[in-house]
């Protein structure tokens, strides 16, 4: 929908018969994509389908095994990112590539063609680009001090300032709230109007039908569909991707039990998040509490406090009514799924060792060592249960794709990991489905609900409002280190939550 391009004849980036394999894994097999100026081209597909690989090949970051690429009719074969950049093809990777210690200006100068850093020139260029794109971001602050949304926008602006005429965005919305996503899409449309071609990789299929003009669907490295989005809705795209999704299981009514884990009047500080001021929260058995909020509102810190990593300056954390530290909280069967899974998976340990790392918890008596083969069978069974691919317990965790790493982490926390008997009594989950495809995300949401049905107290923090509304019984909104809204899910409308997340208070405090 949206901007109907006026110029169909501008620069066209074409890539045909793109193939790439990593060892035995075929990431891309004879894929074709055509990116036109002034249009948003979405790439969708489940985890590991090859989206990022394709994007990286287009941007010169990854070298294809085989590809025929051209810009207009000129052959295009970038050796590295600099080549692509010089030809106006630029990418904002899934994992942002801004150097945190440097400002946006300096990030721009970092790979400028000139050896002497012309700051004023770069600032002028950025300022101009900012105003063109209608964005307002501090270009002189270290990017690490910017919020997630601003960093995302900042990197886009830097790419534009570098002369990007085709801009590839790999999951830019994964960690943004609805307000920010709305803002981002407005900017993208503005860019399209200027003739920029945009490639948008995303898992949120409703975004595709909202903002994209064309869509390529990848499945296991093959492009199973390609064409305009006109007439396609999210359901149809999902069908193209993975076939029919199972209907979400009907929700059974749950009994809300005792308070298991609570934070009482907590004040705490941390590096990037807002500091918490007098926050109280109680997690009850059988209840799913959702926390919404834009990045940097303090959710991360609250999670850290609840998991026992941060000792509050004032206030305390009580597990079953008594104060507890991180290891007590683990021993009390609290599952922990952090926003950054890299905090929780040990990359150079095997997937199997990662799965039962809690065997090493202090004070937990190691059960008799099961035999290796037996252990491996258990691990691989768990990996299959949680759809971790490949379900091989001996490869290092770093060998899994991002989505599969996430599944591995969930398998440990909700599956067989916690010391003692496995089932969690509390689940602390931050963006538990981020980076997952529809089916996998759905499976994990079902898991969380199942946990609650078995009597666990579940906390889900997410930037994805839809997700929270789908699973939570109660929704809290955090803004600037405070809980500003606390509503039963029935009363929580997207509008109310969205404005609370943006800091617009309507007077109703919890």
């Amino acid at each position: 929908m949206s901007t109907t391009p006026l110029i169909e004849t501008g620069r066209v980036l074409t890539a045909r018969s793109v193939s790439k394999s990593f060892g035995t894994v075929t990431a891309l097999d004879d894929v074709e994509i055509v990116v036109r100026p002034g249009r948003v081209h979405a790439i969708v597909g489940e985890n590991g389908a090859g989206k990022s690989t394709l994007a990286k090949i287009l941007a010169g970051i990854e070298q294809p095994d085989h590809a025929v690429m051209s810009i207009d009719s000129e052959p295009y074969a970038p050796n590295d990112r600099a080549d692509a950049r010089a030809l106006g093809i630029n990418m904002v990777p899934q994992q942002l590539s801004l150097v945190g210690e440097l400002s946006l200006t300096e990030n721009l100068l970092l790979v400028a063609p000139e050896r002497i850093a012309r700051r004023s020139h770069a600032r002028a260029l950025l300022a101009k680009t900012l105003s063109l794109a209608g964005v307002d971001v501090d270009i002189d602050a270290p990017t690490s001090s910017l919020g997630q949304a601003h960093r995302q926008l900042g990197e886009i602006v830097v790419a534009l300032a570098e002369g990007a005429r085709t801009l590839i965005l790999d999951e830019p919305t994964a960690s943004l709230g609805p307000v920010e996503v709305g803002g981002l899409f407005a900017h993208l449309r503005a860019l399209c109007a200027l003739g920029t071609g945009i490639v948008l990789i995303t898992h949120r299929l409703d975004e595709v039908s909202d903002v994209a003009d064309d869509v390529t669907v990848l499945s296991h490295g093959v492009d199973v569909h390609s064409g305009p989005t006109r007439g396609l809705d999210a359901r149809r795209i999902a069908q193209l991707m993975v076939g029919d999704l199972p209907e979400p299981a009907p929700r059974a009514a749950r009994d809300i039990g005792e308070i298991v884990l609570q934070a009482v009047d907590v004040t705490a500080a941390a590096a990037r998040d807002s500091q918490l001021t007098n926050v109280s929260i109680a997690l009850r058995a059988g209840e799913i509490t959702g926390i919404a909020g834009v990045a940097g509102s303090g959710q991360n810190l609250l999670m850290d406090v609840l998991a026992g990593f941060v000792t509050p300056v004032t206030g305390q954390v009580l597990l079953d009514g008594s104060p507890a530290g991180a290891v007590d909280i683990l021993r009390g069967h609290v599952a922990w799924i952090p926003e950054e899974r890299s905090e929780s998976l040990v990359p150079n340990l095997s997937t199997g060792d990662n799965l039962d790392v809690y065997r090493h918890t202090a004070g937990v008596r190691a059960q008799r060592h099961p035999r290796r083969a037996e252990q491996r069978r258990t691990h691989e069974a768990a990996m299959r249960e949680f759809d971790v691919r490949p379900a091989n317990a001996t490869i290092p965790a770093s060998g899994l794709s991002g989505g599969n790493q996430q599944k591995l982490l969930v398998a440990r926390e909700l599956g067989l990991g916690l010391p003692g008997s496995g089932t969690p009594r509390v689940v602390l989950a931050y963006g538990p489905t981020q980076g997952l495809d529809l089916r996998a995300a759905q499976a994990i949401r079902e898991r969380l609900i199942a946990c609650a049905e078995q009597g666990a107290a579940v906390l889900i923090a997410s930037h994805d409002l839809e997700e929270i509304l789908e699973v939570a019984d109660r929704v809290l909104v955090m803004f600037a280190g405070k809980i500003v809204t606390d509503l039963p899910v029935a009363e929580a409308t997207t509008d109310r939550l969205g404005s609370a997340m943006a800091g617009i208070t309507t007077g109703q405090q919890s």
Partner: protein
Amino acid sequence: MSLELWISIFAGAIALATPLIIAGVGEGFVERAGRINLGIEGMMILGAFTAIVAASVAGPFVGLLAGTLAGLIAAVVMNTAVYRLRANEIVVGLAITMLGLGLSAYLFQLWIPSGQTNVSVDTIGRTPLGPLADIPILGPVFFNQSPLVYAAIVLLIAAWAVMRFTRFGLQIRAVGSDPTSAALRGVRTAKVGARALLIGGALAGLAGATITVGSIGSFTPGITAGRGYVVLAVVIMGRMTPLGIALGALLFSFLQSFSLLSQATAVQLPSEVYQALPYVVTLIVLVFTSRAQLRKTTAKVKLAT
């Protein structure tokens, strides 16, 4: 203590600081790029020895050049071992130091066999800066020094300018603080790191040459006397910025100069106290700078104990 004594102490401090500053500026690049060079002591002494040999043939300036080159070559070896062959950085650094100390002593013994008088070369000497040198107090402290002292100051400014105004400076900061993002942005991290290490090695060699050709005029085994390790401390103490490094080096050498010369007054402490003083104070300063840094990121997650 008399005024002359203080003048001597300060003038001595500046002279002693020169090699520390020169090597420190180099190591500053290395550490900014996220690496550490434990071979710096070895590179310094190789520079010191090579410089004397070259200077005895072709004069002190060629000596300085040769010393620089020796450090550079050692850095090339280190870069190949650590960043191409991926050997452990700490082991290789220690090996380079061992090698440098051994090789310089060995070649020295072959060069000047027993019974032969050691070779002296003309040193760079001091250059009084015209009338400035006659200013009371300041003159003898600042303006009657070796040209190498002035060169070190120029070097400091140059290093500052490189870090501040060039793409290379930005790339070093990026590679050091966030190599993954830097690589993703298209910075060739290995190349940037290698360049930093080569600069570090060359300047370490020059620093060694500064000791022999710049001030003593001859070589004796072990002449660098652990200064390489001091440089490492000074760089961290100075938070890797040129100005900080200069201040750190000056503090250390002031203490050393003070310990040396205040012995000649009546204050009677065990001489070991004087000798350990610079290291102890460096450690204390390190505590304060680290603590300040901790404060700065006060927000840092306070992990419960």
